[in-house]
């Protein structure tokens, strides 16, 4: 018998393709599987690529940084390597140059690869040789094979170092780099007590072993030690990609929700249409249990078709998207794993099971009596329980997918709430509009009636479409408009170059060079130091909240400076600025840091600078305009306090038009200083953001497809009723045009309202971003006001025309007779 049921189910799955309800169900499932498969595969590839890129930047899976050499024995599958990095001068003939040296042990690096010229190279430089970055060759006018003096040793520069991971962090990474063997370090004599050396130990190995090691290291982390790992530390692009990944998950969740809604509605319709068929099958001898089996099999057949098709489509689309954003990612982009590839199909199956089984369970409880008179499907506690279980499973599925129950719930709540508000508002506006037209057009009262009748569908349709259009409009406008606006808001004299690593002896000739070019940027001395105690209590013993401890400035060395005048772009909040050179060291503290440390005027703060300990009294608290593109400091000392300590200088300047050639002159005349082109950095950031927004818009456009499908299904919900109404109206003398007009106006108005609401909502979101994130003045976007309502109206009426085909007059009477 079960064979017969299986055969019947297969037959029914295919013959049902003629039924619009079954087609809608399959279409909803297909779109959901395609979208989820696309987004999960894309997310997986992004994550893999991100981990690989971070590993390559770190040169390892895990890096322990310390100011003292520490050698940790490693066990098992973990490989390890050690690096000492320090700035030093090298000499070649009469020329000298400041370089950043990495003395490394074999193997190096553990992740990623060093690229040299010539390309063939041993794992690390051979004894007596070193590899140097091209800038060293250029500045010192050397060729590969030439020799440089480093401390007491001579090294032959055998290779140009074209690129390498693990370049170190902060300003250290800006100096031209040189790689040498660790075992040759001692002979150079450049490392002495108090030298600014950073020691790093690199680790790599299987993910599980690395995680265990990371946990152990983190527990025993000393105050001067820092641990960098794939999971916690990412460069700027890494953060952007991480956000992109979260965005993909959220989009997938939205698609999942839309899919679930569409599937529920199509199932409901399909179920209703199957009511008498199920009763007939019962009357022919099928048992209720077999009926459930029959529809279960049918769902399975439908799922197989959609799973194959959806997975293939998802794969194709994500390949297309990876092509689009490909140059953001290290090549080749790793392929998605099997789990990600099959996720769409599996989630589709879960959706179908959780939503379909309760529905079909109710259908299987139908009675033969339904053949003789209209009965409603039984709704007993058991079917309610199954339904509840279905919803529970769906909620669980979402939280597993998002990897956070709180986030899933928050998102669900936010979507539901905004959906409710938007839906209610749109419906109220639509009804108001129809009331206004009630006496101004023929059939006006019928239209008003229909709008009242359809209000729950209108709310759902409006909520979905308005939210989707809002997101799409926000993304597109933010991409085209706001980034540009953010950049142009800076005053025209905002610096576009940073100069760092200026040596004390270069200060005077540099000032002269600036003066001869009509420039007068302020040069700030810069010394690195760490806050060690507050009011004579060591920092480690000061009671600070976790939040306070998390402040960046308390976890690392700070750039300290001293100045007589308060820098521009700073404003005094409390206390007073010093006059001349005070007898005791005074400091000015930035407001956020002051809050994090809990210090106020008169408190004493000690700094560890090299081997010296310097204590200073807080003289004032300052606000800093961080986005001013000028050197900004958390802590500023009064003149005299740091005079005897070795410092380099930093400045920022604006070079426009012909002045830009000065950048080259600077590098030629002062080879050891480092020039940072801010315009170039901003261009790179903008290009990155634009690419991410482009791919997000594509994904959102696909989600819009899921929304349109929901619109289709909701428009199909009361199709029979509308056809009946049309038939009656046309029989009573309404022209086909009048009858179409009723449908058209309802959808046209709803579309216009949704578009209008989306325009308002996107302006509101953009306003929030302008005011809160970018801090730029509000601008309106009239184009979106003009385009969104007609676009949305077009979507609504287009789909309406597709679904509600005009009724042939010849069928009107037979439709009425059949009713």
């Amino acid at each position, binding site marked *: 018998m079960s064979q017969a049921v299986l055969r019947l189910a297969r037959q029914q799955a295919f013959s049902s393709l003629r039924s619009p309800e079954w087609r809608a169900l399959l279409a909803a499932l297909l779109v959901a599987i395609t979208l989820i498969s696309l987004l999960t595969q894309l997310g997986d590839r992004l994550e893999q690529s991100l981990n690989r890129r971070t590993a390559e930047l770190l040169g390892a899976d895990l890096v322990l940084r310390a100011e003292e050499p520490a050698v940790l024995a490693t066990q098992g599958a973990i490989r390890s390597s050690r690096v000492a990095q320090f700035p030093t001068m090298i000499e070649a003939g009469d020329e000298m140059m400041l370089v950043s040296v990495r003395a490394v042990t074999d193997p190096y690096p553990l992740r990623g690869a060093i690229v040299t010229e010539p390309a063939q190279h041993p794992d690390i430089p051979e004894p007596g040789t070193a590899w140097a970055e091209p800038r060293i060759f250029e500045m010192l006018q050397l060729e590969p094979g030439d020799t440089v003096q480093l401390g007491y040793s001579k090294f032959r520069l055998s290779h140009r170092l074209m690129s390498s991971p693990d370049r170190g962090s902060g300003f250290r990474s800006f100096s031209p780099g040189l790689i040498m063997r660790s075992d040759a370090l001692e002979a150079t004599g450049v490392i002495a007590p108090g030298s600014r050396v950073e020691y790093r130990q690199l680790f790599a190995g299987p993910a599980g072993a690395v995680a265990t090691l990371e946990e152990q290291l983190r527990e025993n982390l000393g105050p001067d030690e820092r641990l960098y790992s794939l999971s916690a530390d990412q460069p700027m692009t890494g953060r952007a990609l991480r956000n992109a990944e979260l965005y993909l998950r959220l989009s997938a969740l939205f698609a999942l929700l839309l899919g679930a809604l569409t599937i529920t509605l199509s199932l409901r319709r399909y179920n209703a249409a199957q009511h008498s068929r199920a009763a007939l099958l019962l009357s022919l001898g099928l048992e209720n249990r077999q009926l459930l089996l029959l529809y279960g099999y049918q769902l399975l057949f439908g799922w197989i078709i959609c799973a194959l098709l959806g997975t293939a489509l998802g794969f194709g689309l994500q390949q297309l998207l990876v092509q689009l954003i490909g140059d953001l990612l290290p090549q080749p982009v790793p392929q998605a794993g099997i789990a990600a590839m099959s996720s769409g199909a599996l989630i589709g199956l879960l959706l179908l099971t959780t939503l379909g089984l309760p529905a079909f369970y109710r259908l299987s409880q139908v009675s033969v009596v339904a053949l003789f008179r209209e009965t409603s499907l039984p709704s007993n506690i058991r079917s309610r329980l199954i339904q509840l279980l279905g919803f529970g499973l769906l909620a669980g599925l979402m939280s597993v997918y998002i990897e956070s129950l709180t986030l899933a719930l928050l998102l669900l709540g936010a979507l539901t709430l905004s959906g409710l508000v938007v839906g209610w508002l749109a419906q109220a506006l639509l009804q108001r509009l129809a009331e206004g037209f009630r006496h101004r057009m023929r059939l006006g009262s019928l239209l008003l009636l229909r709008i009242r009748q359809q209000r729950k569908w209108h709310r759902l349709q409006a909520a979905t479409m308005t939210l989707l259009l809002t997101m799409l409009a926000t993304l597109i406008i933010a991409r085209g408009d706001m980034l540009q606006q953010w950049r142009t808001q800076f005053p025209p004299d905002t610096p576009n170059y940073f100069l760092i690593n200026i040596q004390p002896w270069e200060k005077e000739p540099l000032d002269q060079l600036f003066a001869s070019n009509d420039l007068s940027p302020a040069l700030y001395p810069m010394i690195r130091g760490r806050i060690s105690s507050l009011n004579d209590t060591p920092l480690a013993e000061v009671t600070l909240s976790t939040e306070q401890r998390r402040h960046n400035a308390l976890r690392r060395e700070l750039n300290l400076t001293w100045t007589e005048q308060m820098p521009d772009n700073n404003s005094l909040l409390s206390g007073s600025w010093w006059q001349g050179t005070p007898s005791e060291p005074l400091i000015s503290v930035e407001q956020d840091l002051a809050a994090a440390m809990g210090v106020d005027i008169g408190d004493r703060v000690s700094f560890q600078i090299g081997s010296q300990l310097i204590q200073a009294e807080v003289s004032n608290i300052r606000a800093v305009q961080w986005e001013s593109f000028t050197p900004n400091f958390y802590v500023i000392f009064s003149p005299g306090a740091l005079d005897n300590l070795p410092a380099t200088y930093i400045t920022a300047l604006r070079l426009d038009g012909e002045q830009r050639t000065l950048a080259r002159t600077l590098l030629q005349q002062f080879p050891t200083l480092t020039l940072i082109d801010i315009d170039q950095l901003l261009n790179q950031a903008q290009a990155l953001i634009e690419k991410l927004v482009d791919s997000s818009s594509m994904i959102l456009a696909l989600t819009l497809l899921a929304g349109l499908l929901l619109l289709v299904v909701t428009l199909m919900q009361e199709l029979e009723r509308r056809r009946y109404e049309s038939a009656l109206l046309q*029989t*009573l003398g309404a022209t086909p045009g009048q009858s179409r007009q009723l449908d058209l106006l309802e959808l046209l108005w709803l579309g216009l309202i949704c578009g209008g609401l989306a325009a308002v909502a996107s302006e509101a979101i953009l306003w929030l971003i302008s005011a809160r994130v970018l801090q730029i003045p509000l601008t309106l976007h009239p184009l979106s006001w003009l385009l969104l309502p007609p676009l949305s109206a077009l979507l609504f009426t287009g789909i309406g025309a597709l679904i509600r085909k005009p009724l042939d007059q*010849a069928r009107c*009477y*037979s439709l009425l007779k059949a009713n």
Partner: protein
Amino acid sequence: MDSPKPDQVVVSAHAVSKKFHTQGGELQLFENLNLEVRRGESLAIIGPSGAGKSTLLSMLAGLDQPSTGMIRLAGSNLAELDETARARLRARSVSFVFQSFHLLPELSALDNVRLPLEIRGEADSEQQAQHWLSQVGLASRAEHLPGQLSGGEQQRVAIARAFATRPDILFADEPTGNLDSETGASIVDQLFGLNAQQQTTLILITHDSQLASRCSRRLQLRQGQLLETTA
């Protein structure tokens, strides 16, 4: 039989045939069917199920078109009119009373009667609808929804709706089919009473020979042919 004067004939069919294409081949429902109905006449068309009574009615009312032949309705050749013009003609000259009433369930009795008046774009639709509801004795039930009315009351609302536009021709398709005999009889009385009062041409389709006998003419539709019968 002498041909009636053209101005007296409100519905006519000349050599009308109707074919359907089905999977099993072509199905001929009528062939060379002729019919003339004069103003004020009441005509019953009777016949067994499947004879094509409803198809004939929808062709005469301009809802469907014959495969060959010509139908004239209220002075117009239907073949020469497009869908919109046929709809306007219907709105102006034709009304229906159906077996299953066909009231829109979410409209009150009053609004159901107003519906065809609104389609015609008449300004005082509410007053007219009120008037016709009182004519069928339902003035007090004007605000009730069809679901709150009995079958007989619903059919009376449908009759009010049919007469509200003062049609030249009223098509009634099994008007008592869904009612018990007592209610059916009172509905028929009302229908014929209003018909006489309004001088409307009535074309009635029915199984019920007693109902048919109240009409001035009776035609039997059998095997694609219309035959005049006597009571």
